């Protein structure tokens, strides 16, 4: 429990986005260890493997290829090994209904992706900080729903 960092998996087809997130994570006060995947199928292959190290948070672009983000979440929700993992979905523009669907499917966080680096940093910092509180204080993740 008493680690000094959060481990995170990042899934995005776009390498530029992956680099952006990694750069931001490096600048945050709370340490973040990142592992990344380029599509949904590679993610699920890893998570379902025996040697998978289950992270505290899974960050996923809403639009990922091979297996889409909603399919990944539904699959994750049926496996108790992932009960302690928080899932966060991000996208530039989704309708209210699409966001609701993400939450109903079991995701914990929706992040509206921003173009501006500093705005994005602020949002991710907020997300990581609140996750740190959930992680260190043993709060109930079933009730964890956040939209930023």
């Amino acid at each position, binding site marked *: 429990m008493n680690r000094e960092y959060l481990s995170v998996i990042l899934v995005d087809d776009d390498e530029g986005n992956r680099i952006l997130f990694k750069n931001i994570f490096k600048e945050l006060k709370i340490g973040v260890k990142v592992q990344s995947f380029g599509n949904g199928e590679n993610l699920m292959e890893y998570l379902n493997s025996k040697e998978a190290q289950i992270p505290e948070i899974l960050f996923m672009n809403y639009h990922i290829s091979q297996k889409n983000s909603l399919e990944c979440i539904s699959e994750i*929700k049926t496996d108790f090994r992932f009960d302690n993992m928080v899932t966060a979905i991000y996208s530039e523009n989704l309708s209210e209904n699409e966001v609701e669907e993400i939450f109903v499917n079991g995701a914990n966080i929706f992040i509206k992706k921003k173009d501006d680096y500093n705005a994005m940093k602020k949002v991710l910092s907020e997300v990581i900080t609140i996750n740190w509180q959930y992680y260190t204080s043993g709060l109930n993740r079933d009730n964890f729903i*956040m939209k930023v």
Partner: protein
Amino acid sequence: MYVKFDFNALCKKILDEKLKEHGLKYRLLNFGEVEFYESLTQEQHTIFKKNLEDYGIEIIESQRTALAQKIKDAIVELVFSEEMIPVKASIYIAEKLNHSYGYLSNLFSEVSFTSIENFIILQKIEYAKELIINNKQSLTEIAHKLNYSSVAHLSTQFKNMTGITPSQFQKIIVKRRKAQSLISNTRMQYE
């Protein structure tokens, strides 16, 4: 057969055995406190810590972390208390832990990456969520129970914290439960 546990004795015994097993020179002080006669190497510390984790025992690193934990405990007690506690949170915490609030507040922010004020709000909203899900009380009653001046005040703080309103939250949880019970029903049919 039924068994009864003495948790205090049980935990002390495990800790005692593990410390001996690792060949450490120590003395058990109050419950949950160990004094070492020789300081542990980084490696010893890591191995010992890893071993204790199997028993669900967590090493709280330092006095600062321990104090921050005590502040969290006091906050949880304060927020979840059935009776209204008639003093301000800052006074309650300072008196309970016997330090000045300024000192505690700085220490807490450094150790926990959030302020005491934010942590109190976080806990209150968590409690509000539980009460909303239980569906036994109206939002007005929940607001009153959590010491908010009005439903609007609770809703604003809820939205600041989560990005959604209490009623949106409730709607999502209800739909999610329906979806999940469908999944587990199909699962049962297969089995």
